[in-house]
C-alpha cells in the first residue's frame, strides 16, 4: 500500500465504512459541504448525499443526543466535534445516555456510536482549543477511547470504532494530520497497545503525538547506549495493561509520557496499575506530563509547558545511569 497522510487515512476509513454499511451516518459542523475545518472529510457529502452525510447547527449536545438515539434504533452514527475542547458540552449525552444504555437496558441493544475530534496542544490555539478530553472521559465505564499515532492506525482504529457496538471517542491529534505513512488496509483492534520499538533498558509508554517524541528520544538514547522500548497505547479506555506489564517485566523501568495534566490523566493511573500488578518488576517509574495549568498561547510558554522528546531523553539518561535500586 502506498503512503498517505493521517487526515486522508481518516477520510478513507469514513468513506469505506459509509460504503460498506448503509446504516453508517456522518455529521457535524461544517463537515459536509465544506469538508471539515481541518480539511479531513472532503468529498463524502458529494459521494453519499445529505441523507448520509450532513452539516449541523453549532449544538454539540444535540449532536451527541441525536447520535445516541439513532444508534439505539439501529443506525451507526459517526459525528465530529470539531475540537476536543467542545466535547465537554456533549458529555451528558455521552456519559449519562450512550455509555450507560447497554448495561441499564439489560443489554437490549448496543450503542454503536463514534465521535471524532481534533485534540492536542502545540498549535498555538490557546487554552480552549488545545485540550485533549481524555481526563474527562477516562473514568466513564462503557466508553472506549482510541488515540492513533500513525495514518494506518488512524484508519484502522476509526474503522474498528465504527464497527464497534459501543460508544467510541476517536482522538485525532492536530499535529498529526499532516504526517505521512503507509495507509494500512484493515481494521486495528481496539484495546491493543503496540510495541513500536523494542528495547531492554526502559519502557516508554505514550500515545498519539507522544509516540513520535518517544521514538525520537529513543533514537537519541540509543546513541548513549540506552535501549528504550516504546509502547504506543493506541487505546486509552480500556487500557492494555498486559502489554505494559510484560514490557516492564523485561526492562524494570517505566516512564509514562503524556501531554498532561498529571493529576487525572491516563499516565498516573496506568502507573498505579503497574504498581498494583507488577510491583516486583519495577526498579524505577515516573510520569512526564505537562504543568498543571491551562494551556498557554505564547510560543515560549506553550513550548515550555509541554513535555518534549528532549526532556524525555534527558530524564531517562539521568535516571537510567543512576544506580539501580537494590
Amino acid at each position: 500500500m502506498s503512503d498517505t497522510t493521517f487526515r486522508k487515512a481518516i477520510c478513507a476509513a469514513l468513506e469505506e465504512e459509509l460504503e460498506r454499511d448503509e446504516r453508517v451516518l456522518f455529521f457535524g459542523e461544517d463537515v459536509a459541504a465544506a469538508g471539515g475545518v481541518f480539511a479531513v472529510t472532503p468529498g463524502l457529502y458529494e459521494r453519499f448525499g445529505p441523507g448520509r452525510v450532513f452539516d449541523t447547527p453549532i449544538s454539540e449536545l444535540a449532536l451527541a443526543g441525536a447520535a445516541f438515539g439513532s444508534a439505539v434504533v439501529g443506525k451507526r452514527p459517526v459525528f465530529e466535534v470539531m475540537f476536543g475542547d467542545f466535547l465537554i458540552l456533549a458529555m451528558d449525552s455521552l456519559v449519562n445516555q450512550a455509555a450507560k444504555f447497554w448495561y441499564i437496558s439489560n443489554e437490549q441493544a448496543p450503542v454503536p456510536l463514534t465521535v471524532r475530534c481534533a485534540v492536542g496542544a502545540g498549535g498555538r490555539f490557546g487554552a480552549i482549543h488545545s485540550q485533549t478530553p481524555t481526563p474527562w472521559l477516562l473514568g466513564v465505564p462503557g466508553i472506549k477511547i482510541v488515540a492513533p499515532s500513525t495514518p494506518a492506525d488512524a484508519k484502522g482504529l476509526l474503522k474498528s470504532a465504527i464497527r464497534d457496538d459501543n460508544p467510541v471517542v476517536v482522538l485525532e491529534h492536530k499535529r498529526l494530520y499532516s504526517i505521512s505513512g503507509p495507509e494500512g488496509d484493515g481494521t486495528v483492534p481496539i484495546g491493543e497497545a503496540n510495541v513500536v520499538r523494542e528495547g531492554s533498558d526502559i519502557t516508554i509508554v505514550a500515545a498519539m503525538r507522544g509516540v513520535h517524541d518517544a521514538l525520537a528520544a529513543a533514537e537519541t538514547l540509543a546513541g548513549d547506549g540506552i535501549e528504550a522500548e516504546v509502547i504506543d497505547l493506541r487505546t486509552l479506555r480500556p487500557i492494555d495493561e498486559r502489554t505494559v506489564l510484560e514490557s516492564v517485566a523485561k526492562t524494570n523501568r517505566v516512564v509514562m509520557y503524556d501531554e498532561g495534566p498529571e493529576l487525572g490523566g491516563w499516565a498516573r493511573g496506568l502507573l498505579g496499575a503497574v504498581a498494583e500488578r507488577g510491583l516486583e518488576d519495577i526498579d524505577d517509574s515516573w510520569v512526564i506530563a505537562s504543568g498543571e495549568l491551562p494551556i498557554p498561547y505564547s510560543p515560549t510558554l506553550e513550548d515550555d509547558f509541554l513535555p518534549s522528546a528532549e526532556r524525555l531523553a534527558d530524564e531517562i539518561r539521568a535516571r537510567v545511569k543512576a544506580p539501580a535500586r537494590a
Partner: protein
Amino acid sequence: MSAVETATTVDAVAGDWQPTADELAGGLRTMLLLRRFEEEMQRLFLRGEIHGTVHLYIGQEAVSAGVCSALEAGDWVAATYRGHGAALAQGSDPEALAAELLGRRTGTCGGRAGSMNIVDLDHGLVGCFGIVGGSIAAATGAALGCRGGDRVAVAFFGDGATNQAYFHECLNFAKVLELPVLFVCENNLYGEFTPLAQSTAGADIAGRARVFDIPAARVDGNRWEVVAAAARAAVARMRAGEGPQFIEALTYRHLGHSKSDAGRYRPPEEVEAWLARDPIDQLRATLADDERADAIDAEVGGELTAAVERALAAPFPDPAVDRATEYAP
C-alpha cells in the same frame, strides 16, 4: 388567570378525529391501567418494597394514553423519570415493570435500571431518562434513525425541561433536519416545587416551539380524546414528511413530585379544582357507559393484582449469575 382556567382556554385542536365508543373504551382501559398500576406502586413504596425514589404519574394519564394511541408498532417513544405511564401506554408488561421497580430479576431491565431508567425496546420505549430533558435528545435521535421511512418518534417531557439545553438544541436540530419527532410537553405547572411562571420566562411553551417554525398545539391534557386527536393530526403530518411537531398538554399531577413530597407549595383550591378535572372521570363521562367502565376497571384491577403478586414472588438478581459486561461484544 388561574391554572385551571389556563388549562381550559387552550388552542383549538387541529384534526377532526371522532373516536368510536370502542376507542373511548380502549383509552379508558389504558388510563385505568396506568392509574391502578401507580396506586399499587405507591403502596409498595410505602411498604418499603420499592427503593430509592419514585415519581408518580397519577393525574396525567390522558397525555401518554392519548399520544400513544396514535402510534403504531415500530414508532419510538422516549419518556422521563416519571415514565411508567408512557411505558404502559406503549404496551410494556405491567408485571415486568413492577418487578423492575421491585428490583427483581424478572424486571423489564433485569433490575438494573429501576423506576427512573426503564428501557423497553420491544415496546418501542427507547428509554426513560433521569436527566431532565434527556428524553428530548433520545427521541430526536430515534427520529434521525427513522428519517426516510415512515416511522416516527415521540418525546415526553415536563414544563421544567423547557429550560434545559436539550430542549432548545434538539428542537432546532430536529427542525433543521425536518425529523419526524413529536415533542410532547406535559405541562403540569410545576417543576418539582417551583411554579412554572417562576422558572419559565414568558411562560409560553408552545411559543418556544413556534419560534423554530415547529407547528405547536396547546391542548387540554386532561381529556384523552383531545390529546389523542392532536396526536393523530401531528403524527399524520410527520408521516407525510412535514417534520417535527409539538404538543403542549396542560395537566396536573395529583400527588407530590416524588416519594417524599407532600406538595405543600400548591394552593389547596388549585389542587381541588384539578382533582375535579380528573382525566379518568372525564373520559368515563364521555363514554357515558358506567357498566362498561366499571367492568374495565375491575378487569384491570384484577390483572394488576395478579401481576404484582407474581412480581413480588420473583427472585432478586444474583450478582454471581448476572454476568454483566462493560462493553457490548
